[in-house]
């Protein structure tokens, strides 16, 4: 059993492909670690209570609200934030689609929306517009860009389905 007094605890995290050895207090959330210690401010602190989705990142490929995760509990994990989605300067298809469909106004919710949508596509449970709405309901947008957000995701979902069909 690993046992720690309330002091700094050594952990290792791979963030956007880069490995970090860190020493952190057990009360630091993953969101605060990303923003305050690793200067990755893409993931946003909207509510800090699991209620808005602005802090959504991918942990070992799964979308999760980073504000409710204590970083120590994710020792050894691979984290992808919005900063890590683009591939060698090439925008992720969701990023390109959000631009194409004008799927934001202020942009505050956008990193969380896009990470969440990346998780949604990887899950493979979403096949219709109604399901996009439902499976994106964990991401609030105070500007109300929902229609265009759903359009952007639907576009990528459909082109992926078409690619899959063509391959078969």
């Amino acid at each position, binding site marked *: *059993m*690993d*046992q*720690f*007094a*309330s002091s700094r*605890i050594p952990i290792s995290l791979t963030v956007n492909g880069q490995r970090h050895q860190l020493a952190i*207090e*057990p*009360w630091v*959330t993953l969101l605060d670690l990303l923003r305050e210690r690793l200067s990755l401010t893409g993931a946003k602190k909207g509510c*800090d*209570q*699991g209620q808005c*989705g602005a802090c*959504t990142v991918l942990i070992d490929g*799964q*979308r*999760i*609200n980073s504000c*409710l*995760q*204590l970083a*120590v*509990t994710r020792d050894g994990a691979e984290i992808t934030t919005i900063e890590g989605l683009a591939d060698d300067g090439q925008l992720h298809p969701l990023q390109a689609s959000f631009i194409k469909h004008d799927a934001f106004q202020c942009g505050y919710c956008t990193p969380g929306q896009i990470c*969440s949508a990346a*998780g*949604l596509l990887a*899950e493979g*449970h979403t096949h*219709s517009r*109604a*399901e996009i*709405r*439902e*499976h994106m*309901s*964990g*991401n*609030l947008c105070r500007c109300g860009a929902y229609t265009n957000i759903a359009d952007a995701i639907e576009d990528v979902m459909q082109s992926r389905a078409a690619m899959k069909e063509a391959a078969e």
Partner: protein
Amino acid sequence: MNRYDYVRPDTVADAITALANPDARALAGGTNLVDLMKYDVARPALVVDINRLPLKSIEVSGDKLRVGALVSNSDLAWHPDVQARWPLLASAILAGASPQLRNAATTGGNLLQRTRCYYFYDPSTACNKRAPGSGCSAIGGVNRIHAILGASSACIAVHPSDMCVALAVLGATVEVEGPQGQREIPFAEFHRLPGDMPERDNTLQQGELITAVAIPAPQFGSHFTYLKLRDRLSYAFALVSVAAALQIENGTIKDARIALGGVAHKPWRDVEAEQSLRGQAPEPRVFEAVAQLILRDAKGQGENDFKIELATRAIARALAQAAAGMPQNQSDKVIQ
């Protein structure tokens, strides 16, 4: 958040040893405990991170589903066997929280999540559940989301889980392990009514860990539904929810199970009312009568009076959906 020590046991035995400290708290997905720690409602001296315990498997053997305490709500809901044979459970889980919360939330944590009563979350107010003996601010206060059944003069809070409402209908068993060894708790006896001890949500003893939840295969085929009514269409706690299941043979009801969420300190079942359906025809007038029966002792607190009528109608609607074999779709929110 307060300052605390942190341990990360690898075995259930080590976790139980660590949890012997009365100021220790187990941490699973963290979606409720971390939230409550931020509000200073939970102030553990020791956080026991149980995520390395070997409690992550979903086993199906014959007619039994056994779910490890650390299985995530998402993995459980989307498991092919659960989708095929326990669809009521899948439906209720998918009606709750959001996909990213369900990815983190665990089976054990879902059972042990605490009430969403506003005063419980606000340490500057009186709340018997948070600070026993301090009073209940919700009585005579803001109580739109509060209980209409089984409340006490000490507490009128509700248990907020969706999954637990389905588990009540499915007749699950909670497997626990503690300093005194292992035991099994029938689901109906797991959560409790507030009485004069609202600080106790359930019958888990201090230092006990949930290890698994076991669920028998249901006998109701497609005659089930999970109907959840709330202030917005998604990502909101239930004002009222109903899990309903009917066994129908030759046009009459052979057996019925009905559990309500959002109305009491525990998922609410009324076995007598369920039994009154036996031998009856599955028709609206019968469903309306049983709904009235279930709500016969309901009591509003003012702001939540509307829940009595809402619950009555929701039960009748849920039974009609179950009878028709048309379970509520959790994406397309049209209520049939």
